[in-house]
């Protein structure tokens, strides 16, 4: 049944586009000023740049060792997020469907762990792994992200698994599937919207993370993108315009991913709707 399209005051559109403008102003500032010098930026942040000079980008590209950094970021993010999504969704399913006492306890512990302030475990973390001589290693970092990402991921999945009707799984079990098959064929596809959401949120978290990699990855060749922007910060001031160029270069890959991922969300949604 189609809604009759009435001529109505475009409240929705006004609200959305106004909010959009407000949201996007900082990006205008960043993009615009990435083509100027810091000196000009400070005296007049809003004025449109005179030229599309890429000097900041070239400078930032070299200082950041960009290709190396983006490779590291990419590798770490890809593996970490994949591991988190796979392990957390299966754990969440298990903890919810098998209503054992211990599962409830584990779930409570996991959820509480989301609130642990990072500095409470910072020093113990590096001292434990340092004594195992396990630092300065991408794979350890990936393992750490896998661990740190569990609470949030499991929590997220938990709420959505509830929405998947139990009858579907029971039907599958009666048909002779075991639990693992039931999970992969019935539950996982239905989780697509939240898994994609989780994927995007986790990619953003890990891609932009500074503190943890700064403590684990110590040598220059291991640096991720956020770590490699350190050279634009000095103790008292910031070299703004190259920083902005580096920011644009850091955001761009994720932006591209997100734009492409948008189509997947729609696909997943459509598939989920046809049950």
């Amino acid at each position: 049944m189609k809604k009759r399209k009435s001529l109505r005051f475009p409240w929705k559109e006004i609200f959305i586009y106004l909010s959009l403008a407000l949201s996007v102003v900082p990006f205008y500032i960043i993009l615009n000023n990435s083509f100027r010098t810091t000196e000009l930026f400070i005296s007049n942040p809003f004025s449109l740049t005179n030229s599309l000079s890429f000097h900041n980008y070239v400078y930032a590209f070299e200082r950041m060792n960009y290709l190396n950094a983006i490779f590291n970021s990419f590798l770490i993010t890809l593996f970490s997020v994949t591991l988190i999504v796979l392990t957390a969704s299966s754990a969440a399913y298990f903890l919810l469907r098998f209503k054992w006492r211990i599962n409830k306890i584990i779930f409570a512990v996991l959820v509480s762990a989301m609130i642990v302030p990072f500095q409470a475990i910072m020093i113990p973390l590096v001292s434990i792994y340092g004594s195992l001589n396990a630092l300065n290693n991408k794979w350890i970092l990936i393992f750490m992200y896998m661990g740190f990402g569990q609470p949030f991921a499991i929590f997220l999945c938990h709420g959505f698994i509830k929405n998947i009707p139990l009858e579907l799984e029971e039907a599958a079990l009666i048909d002779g599937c075991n639990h693992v098959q039931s999970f992969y064929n019935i539950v996982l596809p239905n989780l697509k919207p939240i898994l994609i959401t989780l994927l995007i949120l986790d990619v953003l978290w890990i891609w932009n993370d500074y503190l943890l990699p700064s403590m684990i990855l110590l040598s220059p060749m291991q640096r991720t993108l956020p770590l490699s922007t350190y050279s634009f910060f000095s103790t008292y001031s910031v070299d703004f315009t190259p920083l902005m160029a580096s920011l644009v270069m850091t955001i761009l890959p994720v932006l591209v991913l997100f734009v492409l991922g948008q189509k997947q969300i729609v696909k997943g949604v459509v598939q989920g709707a046809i049950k």
Partner: protein
Amino acid sequence: MSNMKLHKKMGLFLVFAGPALFAFISVLLLPLIQGVVFTFTDWNLVSDKFSFIGLQNYQTVFRDREFIAQFLLTIKYVLYSSVLSNLAAFTLAYLLTSGMRGQNLLRGAFFLPNLIGGIVLGYIWKFIFSNVLTQLGKSLGIEVLSTSFLTHPQRAIWAMIIVTVWQYAGYLMMIYIAGFVAIPQETQEAADLDGAHGLSRLLRITIPLMVPSFVICLFISISRGFMTYDLNLTLTNGGPFGSTQLAAMHVYQKAFLAKQYGIGQAEAIVLFIVVALISVTQVMLTKKLEVEA
């Protein structure tokens, strides 16, 4: 289920939850336990020696008026930023799942603020508050904008709130969108057939089905709010004169600047326990409202 053999149960447990829990325990739980152990010592972060001093650190924490004051400030900050960002996020998600033109692109656009990470976010907004808004205020003659938001204690905390809402509205919006999208088609069609439109539909059908999303989003904004550090450091640096220093920043300074590591850790643990209590209560209360599909 209870008639399953034990080894089969263990097998399932290991297959489904094994990897996740192994990583979690080795990376989060173990360091946390060691961190708690440190709260019973007087370690100063540098020397190789330290001694156990029992609960002394905790006593100091509860007598630390500055910590308590900043904790209360953090509660105020979390309250405002959570409510406002969730309101904004929910509204945006609702509008952007209603079939507007170009809504996919718009969703992406609203999500952009999230792409800027913690440290840089603060510096950029600090610049906006100190330079951009002040210049705007001076040229347009708006009194309240002519001096920086960041130099007045009452306004500076609002600068933190504004930036937090700006950053998280898009993030939470994503979760709300997933929630809206997960409302089964049949339910929506049934509502249409029953003649439920607009506000009543929103209140009677949509919102109750969105409760899982509320649970998640509230939890995220509250817990993240309490742990805010990066933004605090780079936007206001706790200023002016320490009036916007939030709990997490206090802990960092105690542990690493003043090198009173045991006390800093104890404060972190206390922070954790209190926030855990608040959040778990919130989750349990709101989960009771959850409606199965």
